[in-house]
């Protein structure tokens, strides 16, 4: 009797030993909620610049997309009978990124439909966060881009009047492509040009993006290789044309390149896992961006480039799967 009590007491007093299957090393850095909060912090400068430049247009677009994304996440997760995942903030991040990639002049239903498609067909239908093949925000944007080409295309940017006078007018890339009129570097860098509400300021995107890279929330290989590839191809086209550096500046700082390279392409779910894979992913994205920009009817190709490379990600993962030691 006393013996068994003794044993019970020693069991109670001894430190608890957790028994669990591997992996045993958990890194707080890879916690979903922490990563998403990092992304939210990194998006702050971009959001501030977009609200400063586009005022009510930006506020409206952000509110619509965030609210609809959260509502759609709750609705679809309920429909699948899963526990709510709203706390990991990923739906909010998708909403903000989606809003920032839309033109300010797009009517309300564009944001609503894009958000519902992003959450439903982009994410939940595959089984939720971590299971999706394509970046949800880009799925939503691609849907409305094709569905409402008239409201999303280059023309829709021209009837918007923001704070700065320069903001009404064609986007830098379409002005260059269709009218052959280049923009000024400082405008492209600080952001007082027209475009999707989050993409205009290369400075804000760089600021947020570098924060993500230094926090190791986003891997540096993907944005770096995308920018390097675009720089290389833009350099060749520039040399083939006037060799004034104007084309390089446009392709690097105009359009959605900076924003997408740091915030969209680095989505850990839809980009390769290995370092080598990330380089392949980045270079492929850069090449596709430049092919679409130079040879297609679209002035900007970042969205389609990222979606195509998302589709190739499982293949890249398989190619670059590291060999375990000892196996031939």
């Amino acid at each position: 009797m006393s013996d068994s009590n003794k044993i019970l007491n020693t069991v109670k007093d001894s430190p608890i030993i957790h028994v669990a299957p591997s992996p045993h090393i958990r890194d707080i850095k890879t916690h979903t909620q922490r990563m998403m909060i990092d992304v939210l912090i990194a998006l702050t400068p971009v959001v501030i610049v977009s609200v400063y430049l586009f005022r009510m247009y930006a506020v409206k677009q952000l509110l619509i997309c965030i609210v609809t994304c959260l509502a759609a996440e709750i609705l679809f997760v309920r429909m699948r009978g899963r526990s709510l995942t709203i706390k990991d903030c990923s739906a909010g991040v998708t909403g903000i990124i989606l809003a920032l990639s839309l033109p300010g002049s797009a009517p309300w239903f564009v944001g609503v439909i894009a958000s519902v498609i992003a959450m439903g067909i982009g994410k939940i239908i595959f089984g939720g966060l971590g299971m999706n093949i394509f970046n949800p925000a880009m799925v939503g944007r691609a849907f409305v881009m094709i569905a409402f080409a008239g409201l999303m295309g280059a023309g829709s940017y021209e009837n918007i009047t923001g704070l700065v006078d320069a903001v009404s007018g064609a986007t830098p890339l379409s002005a260059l492509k269709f009218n052959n009129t280049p923009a000024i570097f400082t405008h492209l860098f600080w952001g007082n040009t027209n475009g999707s509400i989050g993409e205009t300021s290369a400075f804000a995107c760089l600021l947020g993006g570098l924060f993500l890279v230094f926090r190791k929330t986003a891997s540096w290989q993907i944005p770096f290789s995308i920018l390097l590839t675009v720089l290389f191809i833009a350099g060749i086209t520039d040399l083939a044309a006037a060799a004034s550096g104007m084309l390089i500046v446009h392709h690097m700082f105009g359009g959605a390149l900076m924003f997408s390279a740091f915030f969209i392409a680095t989505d850990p779910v839809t980009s390769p896992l290995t370092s080598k894979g990330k380089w392949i992913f980045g270079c492929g994205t850069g090449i596709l961006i430049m092919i679409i920009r130079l040879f297609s009817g679209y002035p900007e190709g970042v969205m389609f480039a990222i979606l195509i490379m998302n589709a190739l990600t499982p293949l890249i993962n398989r190619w670059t799967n590291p060999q375990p030691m000892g196996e031939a």
Partner: protein
Amino acid sequence: MTDQPTAFERFVQGILPENPVFRQLLGLCPTLAVTNGMKPALTMACSVAFVLLCANIVISLIRNLLKPHLRIVVFTLTIAAFVTIADRFLAAYFFQMSKTLGPYIPLIIVNCLIICRCEVCASKQSVFTAASDAMGQAIGFGLALSSIAAVREILGTGMFFGIRVLPENWPDWVIMVLPPGAFLTLGLLLGLVNWIELIKSRRAS
């Protein structure tokens, strides 16, 4: 042949329980290609119904002459004969529609739905059963095509059979009349049908 379903069972099964598109996933090529409007979808459904009915009747009539190793060839040639009739008929009397449907009418020849019905039913059962099987499957195919086409045409153009049903300021979802819309609509409707089946089976148990 006591274990074969009766004519009535064949007819009913084709409409919903064994719907060619939603339950068997057969004949998806025309399902995806011509459902951007109600008119082409129904023309396709009628052409398939005609070919399916005639092919089933002929195959059923000659079922005792079929040699096992040559049966698929005979099926295909029989189907091809009726597809040619349907194709020429459309070209003569509905020229514009024939142009819209393009290669998809001749492609009925390789529509696996028809070969499947010849193999499963017509080559084994009487003419009457084969004919009612063809009717059931054709109605099921028509229902599937028109349900997809209705969603795509209404969302994509705001119209139904070319008549405006949604307000003038409806923003057309152009993507719905393009190929991606076909895949999305088919996938979502398939999910809906499976979901309904799931609820049914849950209630039953």
